[in-house]
């Protein structure tokens, strides 16, 4: 007997490449290494592109550039103009440095203003470009900037780039090729995820970021090219008090995520719209974004998100694996290295799920019933994402009646219930079984640690529910047993293998993925 999950491959066809030259997937803000050829590069169309935008860069460009897409300013002149535009004190300018690591360990500098106020600071980011070929210093005339449009509740992206060392800079106010790093991965259909700023290594020890003076940096001081430290532009951007610590940037980035997540969750207030609501639910099932966790130097401490789903912390269960947020691996043994750059579920996607619960569009119990499926795979569960693909296809083919509904929030539980159904097709009998993981009125969950277990396919087809159906407390206890076991001696190698699996998946599907060190060759 052969079982085949009814995956709808057609829905994953909408692949978008990040950048224009295929070489720019080196993380932390999109990389626009190719020539920018957005719609307004022809003289005269800049104002049209800016029309209706209410962000500080648009305001600045209207004043400074008028209708010309050409400006004379390098990054410094632009920042001075933005300081004036935003009203932020010059002393609040901070430069945060991340080493881009796909080609070489070259710094990308990200600048914020009003940096002592995360909410304000997250309204504007400027980033330098990554190395496109043996640069000896940051290119002062090649940078991108992002600004928050408070009216449209979205980030707008701009690119500034000179064609030659002495030439003026062209402004691209709609660089489409840059945006793909900041939205869906290549294995998901584009459109539902808003442009989202990226800080891949969001948590302590912020691998590859400068963490000083607050903390000791992790894989930064030993990897940065010492010659760059004295290079004129890099030095000017990081001199004195300008150099900011990753911990501060984390705070600013979380504020940026709050902006995008909050704006996205407002969709639930709109009039009922099936496609909109499906887009709101997708991050619960498919990993639209990823973050990367590392052990805190040699301490063995690492985020619990490395092995369990962080969204379950917002339940009221009384278990350490939920409530602590951190776990501690055994001491590093000879031949081992601390886990570094372990893909974990993306904070942006996770916060959408949390927000649906705190806004009571869904219940914590709904979340548990989903997260209990393939729970040993908190990120990159193709099974959960297939549930979405299958379910959304069914829903779009036969949409529910929304006439009695007033908002998308009314539609959320209806669509979620349908997405929690899963089809298994038996080629021999030509039968399709539809399995409901959230039957109405049931007070049980399906405890399926690993859907790649060969017995799961068969169990789903025959409905051997007694093997998997359980109560919430038992599920929690089972997860805790696993959680505790992973902190026992010898388990780092198990997690290391999982890190490699996830790392290969991230590199293959997420254009913004950083270098995941020492994972060896990935299967095609």
């Amino acid at each position, binding site marked *: 007997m052969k079982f085949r999950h009814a995956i709808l491959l057609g829905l994953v066809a909408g692949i978008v490449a990040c950048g224009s030259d295929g070489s720019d997937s080196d993380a932390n803000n999109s990389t626009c290494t190719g020539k920018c050829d957005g719609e307004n590069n022809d003289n005269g169309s800049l104002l049209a592109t800016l029309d209706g935008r209410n962000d500080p860069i648009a305001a600045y460009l209207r004043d400074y550039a008028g209708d010309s897409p050409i400006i004379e300013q390098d990054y410094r002149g632009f920042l001075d103009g933005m300081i004036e535009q935003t009203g932020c004190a010059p002393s609040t300018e901070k430069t945060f440095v991340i080493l881009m690591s796909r080609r070489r360990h070259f710094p990308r500098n990200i600048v914020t203003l009003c940096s002592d106020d995360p909410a304000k600071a997250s309204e504007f980011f400027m980033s330098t470009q990554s190395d496109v070929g043996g640069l000896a210093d940051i290119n002062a005339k090649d940078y991108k900037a992002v600004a928050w449009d408070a009216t449209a509740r979205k980030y707008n992206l701009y690119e500034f780039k000179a064609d030659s060392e002495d030439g003026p800079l062209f402004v691209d106010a709609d660089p489409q090729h840059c945006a793909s790093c900041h939205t869906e991965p290549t294995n998901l259909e584009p459109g539902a995820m808003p442009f989202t700023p990226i800080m891949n290594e969001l948590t302590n020890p912020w691998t590859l970021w400068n963490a000083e003076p607050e903390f000791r940096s992790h894989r930064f001081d030993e990897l940065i090219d010492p010659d760059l430290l004295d290079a004129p532009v890099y030095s000017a951007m990081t001199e004195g008090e300008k150099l900011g610590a990753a*911990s501060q940037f984390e705070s600013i980035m979380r504020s940026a995520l709050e902006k995008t*997540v909050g704006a996205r969750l407002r969709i639930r*207030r709109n009039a009922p719209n099936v496609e909109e609501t499906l887009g709101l639910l997708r991050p619960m099932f498919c990993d639209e974004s990823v973050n990367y966790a590392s052990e805190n130097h040699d301490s063995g401490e690492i985020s619990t998100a490395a092995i369990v789903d962080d969204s379950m912390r917002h339940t009221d269960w009384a278990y350490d694996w939920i409530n602590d947020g951190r776990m501690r691996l055994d001491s590093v043994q000879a031949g081992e290295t601390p886990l570094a750059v372990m893909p974990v579920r993306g904070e942006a996607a996770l916060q959408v799920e949390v927000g649906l619960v705190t806004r009571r569009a869904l219940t914590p119990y709904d979340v548990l019933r989903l997260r209990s499926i393939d729970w040993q795979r908190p990120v990159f569960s193709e099974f959960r994402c297939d549930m979405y693909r299958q379910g959304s296809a069914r829903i779009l083919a036969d949409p529910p009646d929304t006439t009695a509904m007033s908002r998308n929030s009314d539609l959320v539980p209806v669509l979620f219930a349908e997405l929690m159904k899963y089809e298994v097709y038996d080629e021999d009998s030509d039968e399709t079984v539809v399995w409901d993981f959230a039957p109405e009125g049931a007070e049980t969950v399906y405890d399926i640690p690993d859907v790649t277990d060969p017995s799961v396919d068969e169990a789903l087809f025959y409905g051997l529910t007694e093997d998997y159906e359980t109560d919430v407390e038992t599920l929690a206890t089972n997860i805790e047993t696993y959680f505790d076991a992973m902190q026992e001696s010898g388990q780092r190698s198990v997690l290391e293998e999982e890190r490699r699996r996830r790392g290969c998946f991230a590199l293959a599907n997420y254009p913004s993925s950083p270098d995941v060190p020492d994972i060896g060759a990935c299967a095609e």
Partner: protein
Amino acid sequence: MNWKLNVSIAVAAAALMALPACGSSDEPANNAPANNANNANNGGKDDTPTDKGLTSSELCEARQKDVLEAGRPNFLPTALRWQCGDVEGVDTNNRDDRGQEYCEYFAITRVPSADGGYEADPVILGRQGGDLGLTLDDDQLFTLEDLSDEVVGECVFTSWHQDVLVPLTCEADDSCEEVVGIKPNGDDFRMQISINSNNAASDLVQQCIRVTASGAYEMGDLEDPENPYNDHFYRGCFVTEGLFGTHWRRSDPAVCAASMRLAECGCTVGGDPSIDVGFALVPSIREQESREGLYLRGFPLGTWSGANELPTGCRYLDIGLEARDNASQTLVACEMRGSDLIQNLQDPKEFCRQKYGDDVVVHVPIPGEAIQCEPGDHMHAGSCTDQPWVVTE
């Protein structure tokens, strides 16, 4: 080896010279784990790190890694320090026992109203025994969502010792700076758990010095380089374990290890062995009041980059100067926006812990210039530096 640290700052030393030579604290010790009391109704579930089946060795190794290997030094020439955020295992399981590090935290927030504004009274969430979360109806949620960019509440971090009953200076003339409409006062802002007291801290120091002086503790074996007790922090952690069983915390083993090293290295205040060196670390309330008045309301709060700095989004509350014209720096407020609150309605205090707890740092000032050390024949005297409280292994 027999060396002497020059004492050059006579003023600081003189201040400490006045301390009596008593070897014990003013009141009985109260360092027992606070979170065992309510475990009777926990259905047998674990609640503290010690209840989880972890051995003392594992717990001390964990703390040792935090202190020595996590990229943020806890021992400085001028201070001992640790973050306010609790260790793993201190959480809301069965009951909320967060706030075990001579630092407690909670949230104060305005409550959004259905008509787009705020209810009249703010609420305090996460104080021991109080409500943890906030329940809002749909209209209130919409209001809060519309207020997502506004600062709707604040996280309060307090290191005001539980047994310091002296009112704030600013209370005398009603000049205390409000936190979300609430003026700091003892009932709402002083730490609540008895372990977070001056007496507990002072007693911890005294007991650790006493045990060290008595020699009744595991000292290791310098002939055996693998002996874990040769490591100063680990050894001090086990002194804590033997005394109070609180080795799983961040604070207690750090304080005890530093105290132990003071004793092992023959440290005195200004070279006068009759003066209690323990009071150099934590002067008791009685000692303070008997001389200049209260100047240590609690251990000052700062962040990793400085004793007088705070994480982004946080501010010191101006509560007036204490004795010695000391701004106590014991009350810190950190902003909580509407977007923060709506994502953490169930437990805003946990938001405070997650967002600020690792970066709001307790500093125990050490008058290093007044401390003089003359290592004797203790087996660990050979590793004494001129600042032996700076534990590096």
